[in-house]
């Protein structure tokens, strides 16, 4: 009897007029639990390609609202780490949590992006055949399922948001230009703009100032520092001047694991770092 009652009840629930069917209800991006002030937990990551250990028991914690710089020599595992966080690569072992509840390893790239993690690639990748405006429109934080996308139209507030970002990245005049026709630096900016317009919680930015003029670099630095606080930003960069100009905390990666962490001054005086970067003679001297 009980079973019948239960199924009747669930049937009744199914047809309640005040509720939408669960599978029709829009999927709200679940809140990111940052009650411990930490937004990213990376623990014990290992990943090897053909015997080469790209990540070796790597641990990293990033506070909510922080601006963190990752530095390290080529092959230190910076890009691989970003690949793992954004779901592009799966590690052999370890865990990555976004907030306290979201296990990123069980999600794919699209899920992770919809949670609010944006990524800028080392080589600028924008949709070259489409206009700057369209590039930004595609990146808007909206329902990204197929049918919804087919019938979606730009709302006035979304247009305002795009205009706002266009101004920030200084491409207002090029809004109807094909993205492929932009200069290298402009493409870098557009890609950052695509991140901004999607309103992310965590930005992963791979070498943002490569190929930029000094002036552009300065503006980028300004932009990134202004973003921190409201959002969390992780920057990978080789340009030490640039890192110095923006960094509060710097993490040094070496051979797939964290070598040192601290302020720029601490890092510069760290023995291990000097040894790795400048060689043993430097330490002896």
């Amino acid at each position, binding site marked *: 009897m009980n079973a019948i009652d239960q199924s009747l009840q669930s049937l009744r629930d199914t047809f309640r007029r005040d509720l939408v069917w669960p599978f029709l209800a829009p999927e709200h991006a679940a809140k990111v639990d940052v009650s411990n002030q930490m937004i990213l937990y990376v623990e014990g990551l290992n990943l090897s390609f053909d015997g080469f250990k790209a990540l070796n028991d790597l641990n990293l914690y990033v506070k909510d609202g922080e601006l963190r710089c990752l530095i390290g020599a080529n092959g230190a595992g910076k890009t691989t780490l970003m690949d793992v966080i954004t779901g592009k690569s799966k590690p052999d072992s370890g865990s990555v949590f976004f907030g306290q509840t979201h296990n990123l390893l069980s999600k794919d790239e*699209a899920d992770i*992006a919809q949670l609010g993690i944006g*990524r800028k690639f080392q080589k600028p990748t924008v949709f070259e*055949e489409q206009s700057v405006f369209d590039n930004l429109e595609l990146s808007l934080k909206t329902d990204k399922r*197929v049918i919804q996308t087919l019938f979606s139209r730009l709302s006035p507030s979304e247009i305002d948001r795009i205009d706002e970002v266009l101004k920030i990245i200084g491409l207002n005049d090029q809004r109807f230009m094909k993205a492929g026709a932009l200069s290298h630096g402009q493409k870098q900016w557009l890609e950052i703009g695509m991140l901004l317009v*999607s309103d992310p919680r965590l930005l992963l930015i791979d070498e943002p100032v490569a190929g930029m003029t000094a002036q552009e670099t300065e503006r980028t630095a300004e932009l990134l520092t202004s973003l921190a606080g409201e959002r969390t930003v992780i920057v990978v960069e080789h340009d030490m001047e640039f890192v110095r100009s923006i960094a509060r905390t710097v993490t040094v990666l070496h051979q797939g694991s964290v070598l040192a962490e601290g302020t720029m001054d601490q890092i510069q005086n760290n023995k291990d770092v000097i040894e790795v970067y400048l060689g043993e003679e430097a330490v002896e001297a």
Partner: protein
Amino acid sequence: MSKLLHWFSAGRTSGKYTLPFVILLLGITLLASAANLLLPESSALHVSTYSITLLGKYLCYAMLALAVDIIWGYCGILSLGHGAFFALGGYAMGMYLMRQIGDRGVYGHPTLPDFMVFLDWQELPWFWLGMDQFWFAMIMAVLVPGLLAFVFGWLAFRSRVTGVYLSIMTQALTYALLLAFFRNEMGFGGNNGLTDFKEILGFDLQSDATRVSLFIITALLLALVLLVSQRILSSRLGKVTLAVRDAEARTRFIGYRTERYKVWLFVYSAVIAGVAGALYVPQVGIINPGEFSPINSIEIVIWVAVGGRGTLIGAIIGALLVNYAKTRFTAIMPDGWLFALGALFVLVTLFLPKGLIGLYGQLKSKRQTLSTQEASS
């Protein structure tokens, strides 16, 4: 419904040639039909039924080219197996037409098609049941290609099979189907396929009126498919599609499940191919496994390339032109037409990477720069 209409009418400017093209297409269709039915045969302007059937066939091919262009030109998925969806749609229609023959087959069997009597089968196989109903057969004509595309696409795109791998897999798919349909045990008439159709929905397939009607229906459906596709591709979904084509990883990193977009677009394209196949069969009067041959599927891609991929009208023009050339060449120089066809493909890919439409665009922009130069001087 009104919402749908609204969405439809909100098409953007990107397809500014679409409407004139549709009007031109329908105009020619009506003129040709009228010239066939109303003018006497002696008239210089009379259009023979042969030409009407030929045009109808070309339009089916155009629709097929459109289907390939949607996924190749816009989404970057090069399918070398689209002939399979076309043929499946065709077989569904063929099975219906076969059942319509009834007891007028040479053996006079009330339900079994001739080839089954001849293979000594006692009853209809299960998959022939219901095919005597037009509506059911038409559902099958879109459902079977759609389902196959869904299963194949879901498997392939989920595991991120891309590029040439995917092309070769689609080729394997159509090749496997080719071999399967050649088998007489399959119950689709083996190598002979399905033929000797008598009537469709009670209309005699050999009468001029039926042929003209089929031609007009094909033109109308082509126009409809063109408009709908144009609208879909100019929506945000179209932009996502282009994004997938140009930078799939990027698209994924801004939160789109690209595999779902690809699957649905693939299914949509397969359904169009199925419809084209279903329209093709009553007009040419035969469907057989030859349609599954990988070479056929490659040819479709070439029509699109010649016309200009990434523009729907280009695909249509390419299909019409190449097939027209084929008809002409086979009549004028039967021994040499393969040379001409082969050379055409090489030259187009080498010198017209964007097809004829691209050539038109190039000429246009050249003229514009010339005229601005003149104006400035």
